């Protein structure tokens, strides 16, 4: 991996952090509400049967509204997820080979159960990834972790998540420095020579461990005792702004819970289809 690519990866991390810390309406919603809705959305989306394509398509409304309200660039999302989305789409790629029974006709074209289930799986994958992206891009990792603690996820696990997130950038920046130092002394060479991989990886690991230790020390001397402190906002809890955000969060929560359950248990797509046929 060249230092440019590593810089790019660090840049992606940081731009996600920046987006999550913006002062947007979606960002101000309570993190627990966003976390709960994401989990509920994923659960409901995954629970559709493999042939329930119509209902599943209705579920696209949540990411669509979320991206619009949160002023999130869809192109930016696709760019960031360019590696994950093709992998998600590959799930179920072999279904058409196993399930060849024709389940519906679109005009004169017969659609087999395998094709339908493949499309359903792809859509499920894409929608769940988009919902997770929506959460990440509007909520900082600290807030997600605090929300996890509010639902009593063990503190060891939450701290692990937080530290891994912090240390990934430490590891990447060390990798960037080392490969940059290497490339400056190996002009014209493409990539890192095979024989240099061992010492480079060793150095990177040792340096990252050192930096991670210093980071940990820095946390310890500021009172860190294994748990990240509570509170999800720097603003006083009884401020007008906080109360407004609280009310908006509750409305957002009830509205979307109702929508998800409605889509899941009421055949909305069929009703809508019936209006036109």
């Amino acid at each position, binding site marked *: 991996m060249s230092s440019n690519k590593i810089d790019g990866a660090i840049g992606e991390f*940081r731009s996600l*952090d*920046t987006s*999550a*810390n913006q*002062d947007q309406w979606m960002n101000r919603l309570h993190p627990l509400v966003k976390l709960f809705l994401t989990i509920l959305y994923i659960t409901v989306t995954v629970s559709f049967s493999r042939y329930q394509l119509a209902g599943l398509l209705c579920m696209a409304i949540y990411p669509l509204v979320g991206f619009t309200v949160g002023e999130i660039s869809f192109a930016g999302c696709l760019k960031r997820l360019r590696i994950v989305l093709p992998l998600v789409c590959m799930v179920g790629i072999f279904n058409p080979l196993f399930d060849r029974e024709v389940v519906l006709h679109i005009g004169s074209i017969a659609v087999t159960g395998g094709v339908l289930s493949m499309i359903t799986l792809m859509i499920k994958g894409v929608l769940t990834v988009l919902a997770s992206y929506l959460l990440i891009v509007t909520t*900082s*990792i*600290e807030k997600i972790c605090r929300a996890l603690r509010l639902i009593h996820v063990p503190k060891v696990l939450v701290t692990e998540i937080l530290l891994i997130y*912090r240390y990934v950038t430490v590891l990447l920046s060390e990798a960037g420095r080392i490969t940059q130092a290497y490339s400056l002394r190996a002009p014209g060479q493409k990539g890192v020579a095979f024989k240099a991989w061992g010492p480079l990886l060793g150095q990177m690991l040792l340096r990252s461990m050192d*930096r991670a230790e*210093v*980071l940990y*020390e*820095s*946390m*310890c*001397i*500021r*009172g*860190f*005792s294994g748990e990240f*402190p*509570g*509170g999800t*906002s*720097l*603003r*006083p*809890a009884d401020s007008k702004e906080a109360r407004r955000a609280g009310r908006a969060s509750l409305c957002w929560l009830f509205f979307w819970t109702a929508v998800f359950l409605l889509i899941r248990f009421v055949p909305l797509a069929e009703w809508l289809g019936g209006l036109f046929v």
Partner: protein
Amino acid sequence: MSHIHIDVENLTYAYEAGVPVLQDICLHAGENESIGLIGANGAGKSTLLKLLVGLGTGFTGSIRVEEIPLEKKTLPKIREKIGYVFQDADAQLFMTTVGEDVAFAPRNYGLPEEEVEKRVQTALEKTHISHLRDKAVYKLSGGEKKLASIATILSMTPHIILLDEPSVALDPQNRRNLIRILGEFDHLKIIASHDLDFIWDTCERVILLSGGRIVRDGSAEEILRDRELLEANGLELPLSLTGR
């Protein structure tokens, strides 16, 4: 003599057995003192500061902070009283934004959000970086990072601050800013540096370390003007005193 805040007796410490980094250190620091810890590279300045804040175990001798002996069980209490500023500001700042980082310590100490907010505001005002509150840490310049790392300590309202090479990588304006901020902090501060001009500007008392031992402990005036002493210990007169 003012009330003793830090009391170190016969402190000896080694990273590797048989190779002591600090030997027989005795240090008594009063509550409003500004102490410069000087010495060449490897003299043991940073190690001494780290030990004072409990970052290092296995030392012999004793360290007492405001009468509390430094032990594993007293560490949380001692760390509430001492603010330690790392040499590398990148090591100090780990939250996403400056405001979150400054709020980290007060929140850890379980203060109510109103108090956290008040402390964050005060610390940012004292370091003149209120405008950086919502700025991402990685977007800060070197000088801004240094000021932010000092703000993260000031929000703890410490009784003592320890600074490791605070003037490294600062431009003249930020350096002046830092000198002014330190001047406004009217509690005990210990500054480890080989930037003797910075020490001259900020400290009244100087402790010279060499080979892990205290060679001289006296007034800045006496030690920083002693060319022979400084040169014998791998240092040079501060530029401001050379007349150049």
